[in-house]
């Protein structure tokens, strides 16, 4: 490349980045630069030009880096991205959110550059083979990663950094993992798009709450009832939608989810309506409650084991209860996927007409998927009620269904490990970064978009056949 041509391209790159920066300045100037603050005297317009300047500079740098990647200069772009991320942490920024955006942006650019750096090496021979080998090795590693994740989850409460907040969050994440696994049966395996899954979560939660409230039953007695009732409601939903698929099914399930919520809100005599039900009992360990001062005639956990009372016992125990339930659910689903009914679910997802021509009754297959999927939603609902000790219809809005569906889709339809990864990403990370306030949802949406751009099939889209004729690796 001659010097003149290189200079021309450099000028073009700076021009392009300049235009982008100009657009950013035009947009950010009024949006970010002017801030209406309410003071005692009324609304006052404050200016934040420093924030605008830094943002525009970041946009300019980011655009340059993207151009560099495009021009096969990935290494400098990688270095630049990392430098910006590091600089944002080290240097004082005019706004905390700006730090986060700069770090995230820098890392995204660095990742993009790294990916294109790896892809750029187009040597089909040794490197291609090595990469194929790496891919198959990573697929082979999935079970081991699963074991590692389970081990990490088991020892989490013992970790020195495990405070109450972290355990509470972990309980929530595992609850969502279970919900994701349940919905995965319906959406990922059977291919029935269900937008009203939260209904079964609500049925489970309210089954436990009402049984406890009206009949004084405890968590362990109510848990199977919650699962069974949710499964029954799954059947109830299943029957009218047997002939529907795709968009139509989605609309009806959406309506079903709303119906359950509206009934819970308005049937005040039974559900106490929008006031919700409080005082839901916590799970006990073989009858030992986790309270500071147990009622007469009972022994509390800390008294039985002669420990000083701390609420951490209760939080930790609940975490293990959820984890145990989730592990059972996981084993159950992994197993059933390899059974005729599980294969029929997947076959139904692939082609319903072909299923019928092979003597598979689609009615039974769909109903079993709906009811088993709903059952796990019911278990998760009971756990949720036990964790909160208070439930109201507010907890079961459409956005919950959407988040659970997002976990399944982002994780990779039908993938158990994918659900875990997506639940940690979508539930854990936003909760952890609660300080970012309104930027939290921005990051949430951004993460979703990025996953779909980079991994359209979900985080772990690879599907392992349920049985093999030849061992792994000796095909092709």
């Amino acid at each position: 490349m001659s010097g003149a041509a290189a200079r021309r391209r450099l000028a073009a790159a700076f021009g392009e980045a300049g235009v982008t920066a100009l657009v950013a300045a035009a947009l950010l100037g009024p949006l970010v630069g002017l801030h209406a603050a309410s003071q005692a005297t009324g609304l006052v317009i404050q200016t934040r030009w420093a924030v605008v300047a830094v943002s525009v500079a970041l946009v300019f740098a980011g655009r340059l880096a993207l151009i560099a990647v495009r021009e096969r200069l990935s290494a400098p772009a990688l270095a630049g991205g990392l430098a910006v991320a590091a600089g944002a942490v080290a240097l004082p920024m005019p706004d905390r959110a700006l730090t986060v955006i700069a770090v995230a942006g820098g890392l995204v650019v660095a990742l993009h550059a790294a990916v294109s750096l790896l892809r750029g090496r187009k040597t089909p021979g040794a490197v291609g083979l090595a990469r194929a080998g790496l891919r198959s090795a990573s697929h082979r590693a999935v079970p081991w990663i699963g074991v590692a994740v389970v081990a990490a989850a088991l020892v989490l409460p013992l970790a020195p950094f495990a405070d109450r907040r972290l355990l509470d969050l972990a309980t929530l994440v595992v609850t969502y993992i279970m919900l994701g696994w349940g919905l995965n049966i319906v959406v990922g395996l059977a291919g029935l798009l269900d937008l009203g899954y939260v209904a079964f979560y609500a049925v489970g939660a309210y089954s436990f709450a009402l049984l406890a409230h009206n009949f004084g039953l405890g968590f362990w007695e109510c848990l199977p009832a919650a699962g069974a009732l949710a499964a029954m409601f799954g059947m109830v939903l299943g029957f009218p939608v047997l002939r529907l698929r795709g968009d139509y099914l989605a609309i009806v399930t959406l309506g079903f989810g709303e119906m359950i919520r509206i009934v819970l809100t308005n049937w005040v005599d039974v559900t106490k309506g929008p006031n919700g039900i409080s005082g839901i009992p916590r799970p006990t360990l073989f009858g030992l409650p986790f309270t500071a001062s147990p009622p007469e005639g009972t022994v509390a956990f800390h008294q039985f084991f002669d420990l000083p009372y701390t609420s951490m016992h209760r939080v930790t125990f609940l975490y293990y209860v959820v984890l145990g339930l989730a592990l059972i659910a996981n084993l159950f689903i992994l197993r059933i996927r390899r059974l005729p009914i599980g294969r029929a679910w997947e076959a139904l997802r692939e082609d319903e007409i072909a299923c019928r021509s092979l003597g598979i009754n689609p009615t039974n297959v769909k109903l079993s998927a709906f009811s088993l999927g709903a059952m796990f939603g019911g278990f998760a609902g009971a756990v949720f009620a036990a964790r909160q000790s208070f439930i109201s219809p507010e907890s079961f809005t459409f956005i919950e269904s959407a988040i659970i569906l997002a976990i399944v889709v982002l994780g990779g339809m039908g993938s158990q490990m994918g659900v875990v990864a997506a639940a940690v990403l979508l539930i854990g990370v936003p909760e952890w970064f609660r300080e970012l306030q309104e930027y939290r949802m921005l990051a949430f949406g951004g993460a979703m978009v990025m996953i779909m751009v980079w991994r359209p099939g979900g985080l772990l889209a690879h599907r392992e056949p349920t049985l093999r004729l030849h061992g792994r690796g000796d095909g092709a």
Partner: protein
Amino acid sequence: MSAAAPPLLTVEHLTMRFGGLVAVDDLSFAAAPGEITAIIGPNGAGKTTVFNCLTGFYPPTVGRLTLARPDGRRFLLERMEGHAIAREAGLARTFQNVRLFPRMSVLENLIVAQHTVLMHASAFSLAGLLGLRRYREAEQSAVDLAREWLGRVRLTARADEEAGNLAYGDQRRLEIARAMCTRPVLLCLDEPAAGLNPRESAALNELLLAIRERERIGILLIEHDMSVVMGISDRIVVLDYGCKIADGTPSQVRGDAAVIRAYLGDDEDDAAEGASC
């Protein structure tokens, strides 16, 4: 061909109307076990509609479809649902536009075809959930049957690949193997040679003849490829505008004046086309 053998499938006065359109008009024919019966006819003659009536996708407007299994049980197909026809009567089909389970492996496609057997063996998955031996044995025999068919359609090496990644001809053969894994008494093939090259269609002929020889089941075939039809059929039924215009051995049909007229057009170009059968 033994004329004395009772027919496996008897179609009597089958009529299918879609609103004002008569797709199949008073069609009667029979298919014998151990024979290949071809249904041919120009495009739009109603061949696939006949299949869809037989396999329960549409309830016929008029007509009786009787399947008499070799074990003596008889089924009236027009009264049964599609999945029951496949499961109980033992009628398996393939589709004009291949319908595999593309994201499942080749082997899994063949195992899903044995759903009914495995479902019973696993007591509706319960025994399988507990890992009982009864289910493990049933699964092993299902894999053995699948392995046998993979060998016969020459796909053994690709058993663990996704079915959707197979070449078109391989997908067609896999679909036939999948239908055979349901252990049918009548195999209905909807244009199995469509899109195959001459070598592949010769291989298809061999496969179908082998099925006829070894399984002794009836094969009902819709086909446009005359090298397949004339080469392997024992009997040919010719349809035109939903009516049967000829029925006989390949040599009889080849010389039939009505068939030649339907395929090549009529010199006189009279208005007889819309006339009833």
